[in-house]
């Protein structure tokens, strides 16, 4: 077996709350992402999904446990990863095309080549004609798509995506999902994907992880999706086995969410 692209061993991450207490966001996270696999994380809102991505990216050091990437412990930033954040991260002072080409420019690609590449990526995410706008001149969904292009253009070995498609309409979303799957199939990229859309998680992934509700969430379900590849996103939902997995994940997720509202 090859070394996994990402491995978390008994990771725990605490935060200090305003009152000075310790708030355990996630604990006991064990996670292996073999190179080239597509793994999704689902879980109730606020359970710690983004926290896990931050830990994998090396932005948040774990309070306990170990993070490995391609066999080496991660200290500081994890250089293998590309990260599309949940928040808006486009630089407001750069036009869209300059934002998208940033990763290439910083790698020393010539301005011209980087621009060409950025334009073609913008076209792929449906933003042709908006290249010279500043982020605030775009709609929310357009900004998200620009961020997607910005992250994908550098071709990272491990792709971390935090709800990338949630601001898009269903149809655009499917186009984007297709792009992503295409890109993933054509490369040896591993993907760690956060979504609230179970459909999406199952349709795209090799494995779906379910986090329990916080505080101190941990992984309470691991579901292998053994639908054949390549998948046609238009029809994958109708394939035998899809509904089965869906129902399994769904019922467990539902229990988790209900815990949060139990008190109401």
């Amino acid at each position: 077996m090859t070394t996994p692209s990402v491995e978390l061993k008994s990771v725990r991450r605490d935060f200090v709350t305003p009152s000075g207490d310790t708030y355990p966001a996630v604990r006991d996270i064990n996670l292996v992402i073999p190179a080239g696999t597509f793994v999704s994380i689902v879980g109730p809102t606020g359970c710690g999904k983004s926290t896990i991505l931050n830990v994998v990216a090396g932005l948040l050091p774990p309070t306990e446990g170990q993070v490995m990437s391609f066999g080496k412990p991660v200290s500081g930033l994890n250089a293998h990863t590309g990260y599309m954040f949940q928040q808006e991260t486009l630089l407001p002072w750069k036009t869209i095309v300059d934002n998208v080409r940033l990763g290439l420019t910083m790698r020393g690609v010539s301005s011209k080549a980087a621009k060409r590449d950025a334009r073609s990526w913008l076209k792929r995410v449906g933003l042709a004609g908006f290249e010279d706008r500043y982020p605030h001149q775009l709609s929310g969904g357009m900004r998200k798509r620009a961020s997607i292009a910005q992250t994908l253009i550098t071709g990272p070995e491990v792709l971390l995506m935090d709800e990338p498609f949630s601001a898009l309409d269903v149809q655009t979303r499917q186009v984007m999902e297709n792009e992503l799957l295409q890109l993933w199939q054509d490369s040896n990229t591993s993907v760690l994907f956060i979504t609230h859309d179970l459909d999406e998680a199952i349709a795209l992934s090799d494995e779906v992880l379910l986090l329990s509700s916080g505080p101190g969430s941990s992984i309470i379900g691991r579901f292998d999706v053994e639908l054949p590849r390549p998948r046609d996103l238009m029809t994958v939902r109708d394939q035998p086995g899809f509904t089965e997995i869906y129902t399994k994940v769904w019922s467990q997720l539902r229990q988790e969410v209900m815990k949060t509202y139990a008190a109401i």
Partner: protein
Amino acid sequence: MQQSDLPVRRTARARARRRRWIVHSLQVAIAVVILGGWQLGSNTGFVDSFFFSKPSDIAARAYDWIKTGYILDDLAVTLQEAFYAFVLGSLAGGAVGFLLGRVRLLAEVFDPYIKMLNALPRVVLAPIFLLWFGLGISSKVAFGFTLVFFIVFFSTFQGVRNVDRILVDNVRMLGGKRRHVLRHVLIPSTATWIFSSLHVSVGFAIVGAVVGEYLGASQGVGYRIAQSEGTFDTTGVFAGMTILTLVVLVIDLAVNRIERRLLRWKLDEHMT
């Protein structure tokens, strides 16, 4: 959509023109009221022209100084000093601000020292400036530097501290090294703060040069002002200051223009 006569744009442009007109009229009105009142006060003896001179005399003197070229060499010297003070002070203040803004340990260590230095009255230090930098232009530059440096430093420092963390993280995740973060995030995001401080700094650079000259020099507008003051020639004092402020206005226009260019993305945001 290359037509320039679309109704939206036409009205927008007309509105901008009208606004400019209002602004300028108001400005002129204010100037007229103040200068007119002053002139009237002087003429009727209500304002003591020994201390305040008269606007008409001041204008005549300033015009005369410029026309005869009397002040031009001095102005050149003062501007040169102010320019160096401004450039060096801003660069140093900015650089140290960025450095301490990013390296927390340095910031904590040097914080009290910087605060202390900033509280030193520069005028008292004039003898030391003269000792270190001589009587020439350098002592005036040093003088202005000590004013500009701190203003730009504090702004930049606070600006860097204020940078949106997620933007830095994103650029780093995209493969950005320290210098990339500096160039693509820190500098642009701190730009408004820096420009804000530059507006004060332009003024202070000139003040530094003039006060330096005022304390000891053989040329420069400050020297002329000191000379006029020594002979109780209030008109000369005010004429010197008038010329200075006009020059500052011109310089500030330039800073504004650069600012507007560099912060286009931002101004625009407030357009709607």
